[in-house]
């Protein structure tokens, strides 16, 4: 069943509604700019865009507190931005500059941030799940009422690490919210071509973990489901599994010619684009005027412009520092 937001949520507060819209737009515009910078060879390596899936990261982050932890995948710029990592430090990281959040050592796929407890940026599919289980284990052993949100794609469900991690988290009653972003394709392999059982919630439920499918294109549905899950997990109920049904509008990475899906399918999904749809809803409810949207766009544009300027003005880490951060630098300030 779908968790629908509108029936059960309190009246949508205007400030909060505009916040959700703004956050989704921040991701969208940030990533559009990233694609431009990639074309201009300012960003290299792999670049995986989240465009189309913004409602998932934005909705889930609303339910988290600063003390909670986030583990994400290589498609994580959006999660980092909404979690509170500055656009400037993420952009500088993608440009390989020492001012980047990881000094240019990680790049697009490995965003980490201590202040917001953002533990990557993990580019091995499924590899982040055991980390999330461990972070939650530490919280449980230290009697901290903290939650770890772990994002991964539906492709990870085929990995052994998914099953091992779900089992361990459930067995030990650990505070993890498993957030599966089901965008239907593991790179170019469609779900039905990689899974004998395509109902992902059924798999999660087999571990005795409460599991719900959620419309990942509906920001309110995502937020409501995430709040429900986080509340249950924080109160000691063990892990939770949410399957967000979503779609990526852009290619898997900048190298992907998209031979595995039709333009028509992409266009159909674009009709469900969470940003214009939410804007329309807000306008219908009288919460958003065209000038509000213009103002948000202007502010978001300014933030991204500053981020790009910051990144472009940044420095390359001296090559003499190449072998730093292999082992901890004890005693170094």
């Amino acid at each position, binding site marked *: 069943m779908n968790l629908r937001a509108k029936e059960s949520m309190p009246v949508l507060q205007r400030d909060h509604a505009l916040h959700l819209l703004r956050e989704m737009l921040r991701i969208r515009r940030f990533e559009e700019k990233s694609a431009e910078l990639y074309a201009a060879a300012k960003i290299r390596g792999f670049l995986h865009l989240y465009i189309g899936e913004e409602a998932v990261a934005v909705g889930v982050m609303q339910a988290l507190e600063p003390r909670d*932890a986030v583990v994400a995948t290589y498609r994580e710029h959006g999660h980092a931005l909404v979690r509170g990592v500055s656009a400037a430090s993420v952009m500088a990281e993608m440009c390989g500059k020492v001012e*980047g*959040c*990881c*000094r*240019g*050592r*990680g790049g697009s796929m*490995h965003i*980490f*941030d*201590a202040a917001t407890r953002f*533990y*990557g*940026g*993990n580019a*091995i599919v499924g*590899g982040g*799940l*055991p*980390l*999330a*289980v*461990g*972070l*939650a*284990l*530490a*919280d449980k*052993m*230290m009697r901290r009422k903290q939650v770890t949100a772990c994002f991964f794609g539906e492709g990870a469900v085929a990995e*052994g*690490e998914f099953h*091992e*991690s779900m*089992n*361990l988290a459930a*067995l030990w009653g650990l505070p993890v919210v498993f957030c599966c972003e089901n965008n239907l394709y593991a790179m170019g392999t469609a779900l039905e071509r990689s899974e004998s059982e395509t109902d992902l919630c059924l798999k999660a439920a087999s571990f005795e973990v409460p599991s719900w499918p959620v419309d990942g294109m509906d920001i309110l549905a995502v937020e409501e489901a995430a709040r429900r899950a986080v509340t249950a997990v924080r109160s000691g109920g063990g892990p939770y599994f949410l399957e967000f049904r979503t779609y990526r509008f852009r290619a898997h990475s900048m190298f992907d010619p998209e031979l595995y899906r039709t333009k028509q399918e992409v266009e159909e999904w674009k009709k469900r684009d969470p940003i214009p749809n939410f804007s329309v809803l807000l306008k219908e409810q009288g919460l958003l005027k065209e000038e509000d949207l213009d103002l948000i766009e202007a502010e978001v544009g300014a933030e991204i412009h500053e981020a790009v300027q910051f990144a472009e003005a940044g420095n390359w880490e001296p090559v003499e520092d190449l072998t*730093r*951060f*292999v*082992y*901890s*630098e*004890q005693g170094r300030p």
Partner: protein
Amino acid sequence: MKRETATIKMTYREAIRAALREALLRDERVFLMGEDVGRYGGCFAVSKGLLEEFGPERIRDTPLSESAFVGAGIGAALGGMRPIVEIMTVNFSLLALDQIVNNAATILHMSGGLFNTPLVIRMTTGGGRQLAAQHSHSLEGWYAHIPGIKVLTPATLEDARGMLWTALEDPDPVLIFEHGSLYNMEGEIAAGAGPVGISEAAVRRPGKDLSLITYGGTLGKSLEAAQELEREGISAEVVDLRILRPLDAPTIVESVTRTHRAVIIDEGWRSGSISAEITARIVENAFYELDGPVARVCSAEVPMPYAKHLEDAALPQVPGIVAAARRVVGRRG
């Protein structure tokens, strides 16, 4: 007998258990997890009795999910705990290779120094117990290839007793390889034995005619060979590497500079082994000190056979070490 020189009789197994117990008593963030470490008492009875003393929270039996519980160890370390993860054998650790190589070894670097992983992983290694080709290999040399982790190979009671605490105080991931044939090794150890350094190799027996360079399960065999060589008038120095990464090249080079001849004894396979690395270090740093070619005694390049006579033939043995030493010093026999 003076108090500080008092010794007690102990096995290698008991020395590790004493170290585990001390760590659990000293730091409440320390916990042990792995397959059968609790109710079973440890596959090799190392953790016997610890469950009763410290309870199931801190002596944590895991499912057979190497990737999940090693990854959970990494996550728990990131979350502020000081986990000790036990993997039954090095062969099983291959199921957790993703977590060890892609996460434990890389997170500090990928995050530009933001997140260190204070994790200790212990595992059994080596052959000699007729356990055939999936329980007997010596893959510690493989792990020594990976920057970002440290690789320890305790071969003495003192190191079995003392390396664990030092490893736990290390801010980065440390792998400890316990050779399976050593658990029953018994000897005298100082009653007050405690933490030992984990940065330097040790000369276990001084000598002047050649250096036998070894570690772990072949230290005993090398010392035995040195005794036999002494009867023939050949004075062999025995260097115990103790740590395979970072390798203490200066101690190796100093020894070879004294003796001008070297035999490396390594239970790993010859091709691409740690013995090859040591040979290269000697050639790079002490080529002109050498009076003859470096020799190696390694395992035969076959998966470990079950039958005792074949396993014996596959592993480095005392006669083989003695023969190699004789050849290196130009004796026939």
